[in-house]
């Protein structure tokens, strides 16, 4: 998908080696400070052994964070990993944001994998720097390096008398060779990892000083807003910009080519109104007269599409996984259970809509944008302009929410196109309607399940068909059904022990841009599987918790593919059972509830983490009031516990929003929703009490941004069924508002 260089460990440690400049002042322990970009005119640091750590002339310790911050806490957790092994206090650290550059290794901030994949390399980056400082001290004391130990931003000699600040050692350290194998601390010796550390940007945020994509200003900048093609692939038949240009403050109207399949991350196309300020650009748009040619997606209707997916799900599809003989088992069954489940298209709706500032100059380009994939953005901007990549700089601002939307740089390329046309720096701001109507949507999906139950009520056969337009459709018209990667998100890695299993995927064409959204296909797979397990349990008259614990079998590692055999991350049924048990215990599972109330339970393994949730619902006039949600989470070693709790709280809200209200619908190719009145979010009065229960573990750290989302919808649906007897098999719970 993109040409990002994979760095090996040594390259990673050597990345971005700085020069050993002279050094002046001693460290004066400033408070931890979070900046986005280095202050202008700052001298080169004295010691910069790799791309992630530097120590300045004044002793300032700077940690550069390569992943994008969208609220998941990555600027804090990445810095914690480096600081831990560098042996500095948290207060000594200043944090900066990396631009998009291959020297940082993979910068794509997605897949809940920043901590998982960088837990080792970032600690090594810190440890390498510390070892060099220790060796520099040893040299100056003429002692063996083993007698020197970094701590609190100083190297201490074991005699307990001699010590030297890192600032004083930085220049000498810069002249030393990088250690081959920097030694990492034992988990028991961690001073920062495992502590509740507050978000590094929180002080700036509460004072209105934090800088998001929307907040970028560049001297001489103009503003633009784009009237996008109403349907993907639509073209402009004719237009008049005369009236728009009469609006005070409007400078120009620029026609942008419309993206044709495969749309990838090409700008959608339409008419860009360029103005002296954002408001004038919006007003100008209202005066545009455009006749569209709707194109091949102009007849798309989500309701008809859902019916066609349901038809597909009734017929055999492409076999993904098969064990035993399901047909024989169905023929011999005592009882057959069937279910069909539907989840509609969903939009990301990050609070900060897509926005980007671009400045195309004669032979270079600079962009400032809230992007999850700065290197991909840089590569695509360079391709678009026919520039070498080193002529393109991508500054990553804070993201006002991302959820996967800002992995797609279409909105940045759009700003680049407008800047190129007007020859000035330009900020292109999407309206909320632009965002909701022109998203890379989370796939809509129909899931069909069928099980044969034996005399003991346990399934003897399990057939599951999943149907959804693939994210692959965005990249290739050949992608007719879900990819192996998408199917691995809670479908092909179904952990339940059933002797006869058949998993199939059906074909579904895409008519809108499809993209990944927080937890991706896990959302509809977890919904369908949990709902169906509940249905089997109810048919068998067995408690749904007990039924799940039984179906998971003995604690063991499961392997679903050849690749996984050597992976350190295997689905362990014992860990999934443990979170189920903890969530149930904490929520008072099994205790009676008053009439009109009920609890539901669900579990799901995703991004290598184990989550179970119990939702407690009270029905009022047929509408569910969610009273409490208990979340048990096993994400291995916890780097920042308070951040894990926050991510779980947030995932509950994200899950409730999609389960209660989330629905994008289209008629004649056009999306009907446009703002928060028609695409509602959960609000304060509906916020339940959320209790998060962390499982202590010294296993490798695993994902935390996404895994909290999938179990919520099925647990809520189960609670509604327990409270009211109404089975919720189609989302959202509340009818659509358009």
């Amino acid at each position: 998908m993109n040409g990002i260089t994979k760095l090996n460990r040594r390259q990673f440690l050597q990345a971005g080696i700085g020069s050993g400049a002279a050094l002046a002042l001693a460290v004066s322990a400033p408070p931890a400070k979070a900046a986005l970009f280095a202050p202008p005119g700052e001298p080169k640091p004295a010691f910069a052994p790799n791309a992630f750590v530097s120590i300045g002339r004044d002793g300032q310790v700077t940690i550069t964070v390569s992943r994008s911050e969208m609220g998941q806490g990555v600027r804090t957790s990445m810095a914690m990993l480096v600081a831990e092994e560098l042996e500095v206090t948290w207060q000594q650290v200043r944090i900066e944001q990396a631009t998009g550059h291959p020297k940082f290794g993979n910068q794509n901030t997605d897949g809940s994998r920043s901590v998982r994949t960088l837990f080792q390399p970032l600690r090594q980056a810190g440890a390498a720097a510390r070892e060099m400082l220790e060796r520099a001290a040893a040299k100056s004391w003429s002692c063996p390096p083993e007698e020197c130990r970094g701590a609190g931003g100083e190297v201490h000699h074991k005699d307990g008398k001699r010590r030297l600040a890192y600032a004083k050692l930085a220049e000498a350290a810069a002249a030393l060779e990088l250690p081959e194998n920097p030694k990492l601390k034992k988990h028991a010796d961690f001073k920062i990892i495992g502590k509740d550390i507050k978000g590094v940007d929180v002080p700036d945020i509460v004072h209105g000083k934090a800088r998001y994509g929307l907040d970028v200003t560049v001297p001489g900048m103009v503003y633009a807003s784009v009237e996008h093609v109403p349907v993907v692939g639509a073209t402009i038949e004719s237009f008049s910009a005369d009236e728009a240009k009469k609006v005070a403050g409007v400078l120009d109207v620029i026609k942008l080519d419309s993206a044709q399949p495969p749309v990838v991350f090409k700008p959608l196309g339409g008419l860009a109104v360029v103005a002296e300020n954002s408001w004038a650009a919006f007003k100008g748009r209202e005066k545009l007269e455009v006749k569209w040619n709707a194109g091949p997606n102009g007849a798309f209707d989500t309701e008809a599409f859902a019916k066609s997916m349901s038809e597909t799900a009734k017929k055999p599809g492409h076999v993904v996984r098969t064990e035993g003989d399901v047909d024989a088992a169905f023929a011999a069954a005592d009882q057959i259970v069937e279910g069909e489940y539907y989840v509609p298209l969903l939009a990301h709706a990050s609070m900060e809509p897509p926005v980007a500032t671009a400045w195309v100059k004669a032979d270079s380009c600079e962009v400032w944008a809230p992007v999850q994939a700065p290197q991909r953005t840089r590569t695509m901007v360079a391709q678009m302009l026919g520039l070498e990549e080193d002529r393109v700089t991508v500054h990553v601002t804070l993201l006002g929410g991302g959820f996967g939307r800002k992995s797609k740089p279409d909105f940045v390329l759009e700003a680049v196109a407008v800047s190129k046309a007007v020859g000035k720096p330009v900020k292109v701001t999407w309206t909320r309607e632009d965002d909701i109507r022109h998203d890379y949507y989370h796939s809509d999906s129909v899931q069909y399940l069928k099980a044969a139950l034996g005399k003991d009520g346990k399934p003897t056969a399990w057939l599951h068909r999943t149907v959804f337009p693939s994210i692959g459709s965005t990249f290739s018209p050949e992608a007719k059904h879900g990819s192996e990667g998408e199917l691995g998100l809670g479908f092909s890695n179904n952990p339940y022990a059933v002797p006869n299993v058949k998993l199939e995927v059906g074909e579904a064409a895409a008519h809108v841009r499809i993209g990944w959204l927080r937890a991706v296909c896990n959302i509809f797979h977890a919904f369908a599987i949990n709902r169906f397990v509940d249905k089997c349990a109810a048919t068998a008259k067995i408690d749904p918790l007990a039924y799940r614990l039984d179906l998971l079998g003995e604690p063991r590692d499961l392997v679903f593919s050849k690749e996984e055999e050597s992976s350190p991350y295997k689905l362990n049924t014992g860990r999934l059972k443990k979170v189920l048990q903890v969530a149930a215990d904490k929520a008072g599972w099994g205790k009676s509830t008053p009439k009109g109330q009920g609890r539901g339970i669900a579990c799901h393994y995703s991004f290598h983490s184990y989550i179970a949730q119990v939702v407690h619902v009270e029905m009022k006039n047929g509408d569910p009031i969610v009273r409490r949600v208990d979340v048990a989470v096993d994400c291995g070693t916890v780097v920042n516990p308070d951040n894990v709790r926050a991510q779980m709280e947030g995932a509950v809200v994200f899950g409730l929003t999609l389960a209660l209200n989330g629905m994008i619908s289209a008629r004649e190719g056009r999306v009907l929703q446009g703002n928060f009145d028609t695409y509602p979010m959960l609000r304060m009065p509906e916020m339940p009490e959320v209790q998060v229960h962390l499982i202590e573990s010294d296993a490798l750290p695993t994902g935390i941004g996404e895994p909290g989302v999938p179990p919520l919808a099925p647990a809520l649906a189960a609670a509604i069924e327990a409270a009211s007897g109404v089975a919720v098999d189609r989302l959202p719970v509340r009818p659509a508002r358009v």
Partner: protein
Amino acid sequence: MTNKNIKVNGKTHSVEADPKMPLLWVLRDLLGLTGTKFGCGAAHCGACTVHLDGVAVRSCVLPLEAVGDGTITTIEGLSEKGDHPLQRAWIEHNVPQCGYCQAGQIMSAAALLASSPEPKDEDIDTAMAGNICRCGTYQRIRAAIKTAAKETGAKP
């Protein structure tokens, strides 16, 4: 276009703008006060909340001409030293995730505490219902408001 003086965070600014231009864009694009955010443009989300004479208003739908002689306070001017009890409580509870909506949340909460120093849960629900947080920090927002209320309530 009109030339108008407006009072923001204790300073008077002269702006030349379309009288229909919402205050949000006056603040952001003309005065460079970017702490106040754009979320919906339709008073649905509260990201643009500021105070007009101490009352929480959605600046994305408030035309410049409607501001009159009113005094505007934005997140940048909520407290002189950045130590409003809500700002401190927000840090203590580590409320923000992405943080984008939080200026609006704090401004709504500040207006609530000014009129109702010891808010009950129902008061918090009502006052904060207009502010969306997509990251889902509501539980911490509620806790932080209660912490700040305790502190302000304890003052003579």
